[in-house]
């Protein structure tokens, strides 16, 4: 795919700021899901969308360089890494406890373990894309690291919200056995790669992309709420989604050169 994006439009917020905020929100969301399972979907799901927004923001930055294979590829690799690190983090904590007689409290550190594993995995795979594969994008390594992190945090965030906690048994029984983690994989992946993929072009603006990123995060939350048959969260998520999406549509129509409602082509200015 040849459309490599529209250069480097101005940023409303610095990327690292968005990353830190997104990561903190998602991790706080996981702890809320763990300690208050009654509201896991309502708050945990809401905060997990922070990770997808931050991931979408990073996608925007790296994909603007033109990857040669389209925007979706980097979203998919980040989610592939994310899925592996999520399961790794969740299961490794259990292994550490059973094998090395570590205290049970280590399980509370699962979000941190997932963070570390995903950063390591993302960094190494990012390095591999530069050498030996030879990608010529200067920010490739850091972007892969960030995307792997955001992929893992969004998968674990939504899974914890769905299952009501991030303990190994909860995650394995509640989201892996029934395959809901497959939805987390692809829905979070789309929320990360779609906003920039949809908005790219010479007139792309950070504001619209971010608005769409938030809307995509909320609709992912909505899908999980429905899949959990949680009526309160479903209503809350669809309302919030509606507000943000309306804002995105309004902003798009405002930024367009003209909005027409009839089938006519504008006269060519010669």
């Amino acid at each position: 795919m040849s459309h490599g994006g529209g250069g480097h439009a101005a940023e409303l917020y610095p990327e690292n700021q968005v990353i830190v905020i997104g990561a903190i929100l998602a991790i706080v969301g996981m702890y809320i899901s763990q300690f208050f399972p009654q509201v896991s979907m309502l708050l945990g799901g809401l905060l997990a969308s922070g990770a997808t927004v931050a991931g979408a923001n990073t996608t925007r930055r790296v994909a603007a360089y033109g990857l040669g294979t389209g925007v979706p590829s980097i979203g998919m690799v980040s989610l592939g890494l994310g899925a592996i690190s999520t399961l790794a983090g969740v299961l490794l904590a259990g292994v550490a406890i059973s094998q090395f007689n570590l205290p049970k409290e280590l399980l509370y550190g699962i979000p941190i373990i997932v963070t570390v594993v995903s950063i390591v995995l993302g960094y190494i795979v990012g390095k591999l894309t530069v050498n030996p594969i030879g990608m010529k994008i200067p920010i490739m390594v850091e972007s892969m690291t960030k995307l792997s992190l955001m992929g893992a945090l969004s998968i674990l965030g939504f899974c914890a919200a769905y299952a009501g906690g991030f303990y190994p048994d909860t995650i394995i029984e509640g989201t892996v056995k029934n395959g809901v983690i497959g939805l987390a994989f692809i829905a979070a992946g789309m929320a990360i790669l779609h906003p920039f993929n949809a908005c790219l072009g010479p007139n792309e603006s950070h504001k619209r992309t971010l608005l769409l990123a938030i809307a995509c995060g909320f609709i992912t939350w909505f899908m999980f709420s429905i899949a959990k048959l949680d009526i309160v969260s479903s209503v809350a998520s669809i309302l919030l989604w509606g507000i943000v999406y309306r804002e995105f549509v309004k902003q798009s129509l405002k930024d367009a050169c003209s909005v027409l409602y009839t089938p006519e082509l504008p006269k060519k200015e010669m």
Partner: protein
Amino acid sequence: MDPTLLVLGALALSGAAATVAGCAEDLESDVGSQSNPNSQVQLGPQMGNIHRYFNKAISGEPVSYGLYVAAAGAVAWALLNMGLNVPIALIIGSGIAAFVHGAYSVSSYLGRIVGQSQNFGQPVYMDVVLSHLGPIVGHGFIAVFCMLLAAYLATSVLGNPFPLPLVALIFGITVGAIGSSTGDVHYGAEREYQKYPFGGGVPVANQGDIDIKAEYGIRNGMDSSYFCSKLGGPLTGLTFGLIIFLDGWRGIIGEIVGGDLVSKSIIAIVVGIVIVAIAAYLNRMVEVYARKKYGPYTDR
């Protein structure tokens, strides 16, 4: 009832569902202009072709269909566990997926069009958004429902060890991969460039010079779907239906002919290789036919 017969019936049903799904998927991607041919719609305004195509840049078809079918599968799975009966659960699941599909479609149209609107003077056509949304979501619903039915049959009757949402995800990715590699060619290489004479690829110099006139009036995505339903759509459906059916059928042949586990499996594998060999032979026949019929370029 004889279990083999039951499996054969389920296989036939899922093959049929897959055929419908493949066809609907391809026609949906033609109305909305998705996947690889969309790069030309994206390029159009830059080349001075202000168009009224929909611009549905929701990643590639495999990923987007993975999303819809997985979402439908997760919701349907939850409803089935609640004790709802199967058809209704599948329909509600597909309905949720259709809603998500619509939301993503509109956002990609607005995003992509506005993303190049100021520089190239491409207006946002709200009537295109509103009139195309129905066919896009409708075709998408049919495709998602049929895929979900095939996934449900795979997990409940055909012995697939994965849970429903995961099978749904994988089936969605497969249907998208097939739709974007077969039917889309008819849309991208022929329909978008109908003003050029039939019989030839699109030279790089002509890329982006898409047709903006229809048979009557200004072209939009629905005209394309009408055109592609004559060849691209049905062949896409046939591809996917054949894959699901033949892949399961070879297992059943092994089941009937073979004795123990090893001989059954080996027969299934041999039948599979025979199918592949036949496909390779047919491919060669088509190639030879085309070489004879169309001939080489002599004027250069």
